[in-house]
């Protein structure tokens, strides 16, 4: 199989400043690709461009060969991309179940079928016993899992995860890594993730794309990337690794 997601020459300016500049990379079908880089490197902006939050000034995004550049987020979701938000935003006033049912309704028009599907997803992420709780009352790790569950319920072919491991304790990180690996291996789900937890990046990803100052500075296997002097310089230049 070829590339599921292709990003070419993506550029976005905010008030004249280039947040993302001619970024290009590909996510092969069935792979887990990590997008890393220091804070302010343009990772989340790249995500938002792919997910349709705002259109790029230049460049193109293709999903399974089809151009999806500049589509609204709901159309991108329909095309097969599920996403989580860096700052988790579950529907706080609704129950965990309702949250995931809404996700499932993206592809399912019958509510009872969506509910059944939601339960399967909650089971998978270990949230089944929380189904009746208000999403706003969950702990941070649970909210992160809910965020993944909701995105997963939309039955995406590509999952965009924006720092779902940040703020988790090591045991919780391991658990989430396990879930993600399982989704990738068993269901063949392709994943693109932004991550700061390098241990997880090394363990999970097949390929790593490094951004700095809005530009792609390196790409390769995890081992190649951490050995790349430009990558090391970019991190040392800004913050501790």
């Amino acid at each position: 199989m070829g590339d599921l997601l292709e990003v070419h020459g993506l550029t976005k300016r905010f008030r004249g400043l280039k947040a993302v500049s001619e970024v290009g990379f590909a996510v092969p079908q069935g792979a887990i690709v990590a997008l890393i880089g220091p804070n302010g490197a343009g990772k989340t902006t790249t995500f938002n461009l792919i997910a349709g939050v705002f259109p790029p000034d230049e460049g193109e995004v293709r999903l399974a060969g089809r151009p999806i550049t500049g589509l609204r987020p709901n159309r991108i979701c329909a095309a097969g991309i599920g996403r989580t938000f860096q700052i988790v935003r579950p529907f706080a006033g609704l129950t965990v179940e309702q949250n995931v049912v809404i996700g499932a309704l993206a592809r399912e028009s019958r509510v009872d079928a969506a509910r059944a599907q939601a339960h399967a997803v909650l089971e998978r992420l270990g949230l089944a016993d929380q189904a009746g709780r208000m999403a706003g009352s969950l702990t941070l790790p649970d909210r992160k899992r809910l965020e993944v569950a909701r995105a997963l319920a939309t039955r995406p072919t590509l999952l965009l995860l924006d720092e779902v491991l940040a703020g988790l304790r090591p045991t919780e990180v391991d658990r989430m890594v396990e879930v993600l690996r399982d989704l990738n291996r068993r269901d063949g789900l392709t994943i693109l993730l932004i991550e700061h937890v390098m241990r997880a990046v090394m363990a999970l990803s097949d390929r790593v794309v490094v951004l700095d100052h809005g530009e792609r500075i390196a790409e390769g296997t995890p081992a190649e990337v951490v050995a790349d002097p430009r990558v090391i310089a970019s991190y040392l230049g800004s913050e501790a690794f």
Partner: protein
Amino acid sequence: MNARAAVLLALFAGALAVAPLVADRYVLSVLTTVLWFAYLGQAWNVMMGFAGLLSLGHALYVGLGAYVSAALFVHFGIGPWLGLWAAMLAAGAAGAFIGVLGFRFGVRGVHFALLTIAFSEVARISFDHMAWFGGSGGLFIPVAADGGDPLNLRGSPTLFYYVILVLALGALALARLLLHSRLGYRWLAIREDPEAAEAVGVDLFTARIAAVVVSAALTALGGVFQAFYFSSLFPEQVFSMGRSIEIILPAIIGGIGTVFGPVLGAVILTPLGEVLAWALEVSGLDLPGLKQLFYGVALVVIVVYRPDGVWPWLARRLGLGAGDR
């Protein structure tokens, strides 16, 4: 809904169904008003409570429904059972128009609320100048001399009572149905977080328009009832800002976004107003404004101490589970 809630609801509906057998004319008129406001609150709740769209101009849709059905009857003898479709169509179209304008241009929150006020004020002033609708002098529906013509919604207070009872219960059922539908889930998602909703595939524009149109059309039906119940319409009254506020009070006091909230709010408010009016009259304090002053105090007390409304709190107290079902 658990078994206890189902029994309570059945008892409540049953009591309302037999009420005309025991109630006198006055009590019946109060109950009719309660149910009318419960109905309108329910219709408004579809926009605010479900989809998170604040409308402060719902008098517009009541007025359009009332005027369209009344004018069709007065000018062409078209009865309300036919006229209500035209009324709902007119209000739905007006809602869609405001929605399309507002949402296409990204008018949100307080600005959207002001847009709704603006349109209802424009309607008030325009209807004042439209002779076909009676202008500022009012539009009057002739009262049937022979005392009854149910086909044209001309008849006794009991007839009106049962009509509004059916409407209110119907709206209750519809609200519940909508809330548990695909569209309802999407509305809730938008209410909670539009951006996150969009990311899980919700088309904000169409879902929001659907909320405005459904709410407007339902509200217009309440307007049709008003026209034939009161038999007279004045733009100054029908489209007034005060009316818009009266419509939203029951839903706020009962609980925004809940199905039973508007009913409970109307049950609390209307009799409270009547009792107040009576108490003020008896005590010789019947001054203009005192009753509304109490309404204002009640409103402030409710939003400060029970910001979610009375229903969620009461439902917990009665052991009915989560108050939002």
